[in-house]
């Protein structure tokens, strides 16, 4: 009997230690999440305003002439930009976005050549397993991201696209809706379209687009609409990549926080269960010992 109680005791101790770890990870994720969420919210206005500007230009010029807006007739090669986390233990965070990515690759069919650019280690590893060629992989930038750090990624995509290496750029990332809900999203990124820009960070942006006043207003351009577009479009692409990285980081930390919270809760329940079993076993031992003593005494008296 003593052997059994000792085993249970050891088990309780180990679960308690696990709970300590998951609790600590939950707190760390929560504080990182706060930072990431405020970064997401701070960067949303820029993308929105930049797009508004493009729309007001669009009233006056033929925007379809710009290479970043021009639609290719046939799609034979696609660049996939996949944003995941560097670390695991974030619940279904990476699994969800990877599942959506696999589905998206499948729907493109065999005739389309898919190349990938990855942000985050998990995505790069998964794509290697899927035998998708990874052109570039950026690690260790999803935490506390600065705009300058994302700039080269956006620039590379714009360069490759304008060179004509790809007909389409698809973006796969996780949109941050709230601390308890994150949505994996597959987005046709380039050529740029209204839907594209609207949907990055749509959760909190919906209903903000108010374009009434730009109608029929005569805009002056300095130096020229084309030159303004040349500057603003690549910048918008970079901003959106930045935005997607931030959304993804906020989602990652929320997902990890939730996963760790439920792990801590599960550990707590397990400890309760084990303590109950332990007490039962201990009491059974005591009862048995008393029974042995009293029966021994009864035998002597008899």
């Amino acid at each position, binding site marked *: 009997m003593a052997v059994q109680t000792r085993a249970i005791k050891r088990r309780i101790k180990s679960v308690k230690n696990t709970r300590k770890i998951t609790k600590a990870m939950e707190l760390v994720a929560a504080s990182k999440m706060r930072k990431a969420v405020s970064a997401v919210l701070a960067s949303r206005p820029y993308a929105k305003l930049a797009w508004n500007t493009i729309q007001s230009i669009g009233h006056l010029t033929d925007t379809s002439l710009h290479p970043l807006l021009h639609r290719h007739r046939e799609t034979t090669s696609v660049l996939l930009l996949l944003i995941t986390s560097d670390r695991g233990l974030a619940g279904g965070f990476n699994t969800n976005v990877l599942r959506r990515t696999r589905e998206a690759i499948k729907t493109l069919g065999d005739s389309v050549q898919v190349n990938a650019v990855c942000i985050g280690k998990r995505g790069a590893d998964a794509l290697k397993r899927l035998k998708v060629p990874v052109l570039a992989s950026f690690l260790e930038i999803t935490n506390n991201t600065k705009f300058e750090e994302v700039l080269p990624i956006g620039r590379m995509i714009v360069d490759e696209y304008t060179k004509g290496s790809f007909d389409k750029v698809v973006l796969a990332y996780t949109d941050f809706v709230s601390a308890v809900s994150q949505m994996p999203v597959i987005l046709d990124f380039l050529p740029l379209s209204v839907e594209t820009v609207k949907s990055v960070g749509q959760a909190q942006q919906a209903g903000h687009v108010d374009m009434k006043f730009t109608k029929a207003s005569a805009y002056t351009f*300095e130096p020229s609409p084309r030159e303004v577009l040349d*500057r603003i479009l690549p910048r918008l692409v970079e901003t959106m990549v930045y935005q997607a990285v931030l959304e993804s980081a906020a989602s990652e930390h929320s997902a990890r926080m939730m996963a760790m919270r439920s792990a801590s809760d599960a550990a707590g329940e397990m400890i309760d269960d084990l303590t109950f079993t332990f007490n039962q076993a201990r009491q059974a031992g005591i009862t048995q010992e008393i029974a042995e003593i009293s029966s021994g005494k009864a035998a002597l008296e008899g």
Partner: protein
Amino acid sequence: MKKLHLSIVTPERIVYEDEVDSVSVMTDMGEVTVLPDHIPLVANLRAGELTLRKDGATQYLVASTGFLEVRPGNKLIVLADTAERAEELELEKIEEARERARQLLEEKRHVDDVAFADAAAILERELARHRVAMKRKKYRDVGKTS
């Protein structure tokens, strides 16, 4: 009196948002001063000083490349890659950064055009920062002596 609603936004944050009387910024075509009732305008921004006047007081900011949009309804939007208020600038750090940018420019001069252009843009930004920081220092010192 009519006011101008100014927002200065960078990808990382909203730097400034308020009603002002006038704003002067550097664009590709030279310095532009925007007053209330300006016609709608979109212009490319250059790294440089941004001066805004509000109720007789003048404030200095420094912005790097980006765009400027004047919207109907007296709205002025500045979308800059980076922007700081003069109070946030630290002269020593800027001088350091300027030297680094100069060195980078020398290194890249013979490497390739893109890197050279990048380095030149960084240097331009740091020079603009330095100018604004120096100006602010001057004003601060004047304030001390009086």
